[in-house]
């Protein structure tokens, strides 16, 4: 399985859960519930973003250069989503902030599905994309406290 396939599948789960969060906002769920659901999505999305930031994104920077417009845009989207996550936390699940979080994360994921992953599959070797998705290897490195070593393999 290529890392882009894994990330796309995960996006599918998050996009569906964003619909649930949006529905809960519309139904008048409590702020505590909205915050908890946001945190539920964040709990898995942060791990997902770390894989992108530590493995896929640096590998693409190596190929395309750090100023490649799409990479700059995706980096800005990651920062915006992180900022909105903090805002939702600080606002205690305030409805308008949760709506903005939903919109920002949805837009970011659609951008990656339709642009970043397409670019990765066009410019990167399929074997490399598959190796980046080796759960077993990643797990062994992580358990040995050497997760960064696993990520750095793609940057040398």
């Amino acid at each position, binding site marked *: *399985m*290529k890392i882009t*396939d*894994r990330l796309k*599948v*995960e996006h*599918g*789960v*998050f996009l*569906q*859960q964003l*619909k*649930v*969060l949006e529905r*809960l906002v519309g139904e008048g*769920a*409590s702020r*505590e*519930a*909205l915050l*908890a*659901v946001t*945190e*539920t*999505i964040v*709990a*898995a999305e942060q*791990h*997902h973003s770390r894989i992108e930031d530590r493995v896929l994104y640096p590998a693409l920077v190596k190929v395309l250069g750090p100023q490649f417009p799409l990479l700059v845009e995706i980096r800005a989207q990651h920062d915006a989503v992180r900022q909105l996550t903090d805002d939702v936390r600080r606002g205690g699940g305030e409805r308008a902030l949760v709506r903005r979080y939903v919109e920002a994360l949805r837009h970011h994921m659609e951008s990656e599905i339709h642009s970043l992953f397409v670019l990765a599959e066009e410019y990167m070797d399929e074997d490399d994309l598959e190796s980046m998705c080796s*759960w077993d290897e990643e797990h062994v490195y992580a358990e040995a406290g050497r997760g960064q070593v696993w990520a750095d393999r793609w940057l040398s």
Partner: protein
Amino acid sequence: MRITDRLRAQNDVVLQQLEHLERLINGGAAADVLAAVVETIAAAEEEHSVNEEPILISALGRVLGPGYPALREISEDHRHLRRLRSQMASGDCDVLQARVFVEVLRAHLQREARDLFPLVDRWVERAALSESFDERVDVGARD
């Protein structure tokens, strides 16, 4: 992409989120908070199982027989999870129900990894399965 890779990736997300739900339960979260989080996780799981039942389980049933124990258990898990989701969505959600949901879903995901996915990888023809699954998911996405 193999169908089992897709399902494993979905399960990994859900497993991480179950840990979060467990922390909320242990931290004494209110019933409406637990119900909202259960609904969020259950929605993803049900989408996964709705695609799994008519394709994977029925394909394996044709090879191994519909009464094959692992297939029966997986289908029973799906029914149990749907019942729990429905009960909690109708306002009948407390700490005990949320704990049962965590336990049943976690055991189910482990059962899939241990019993179902190896059977699929071994017995089900990859090309036909990927095609039918992709078609179904595409139709779902358009809906």
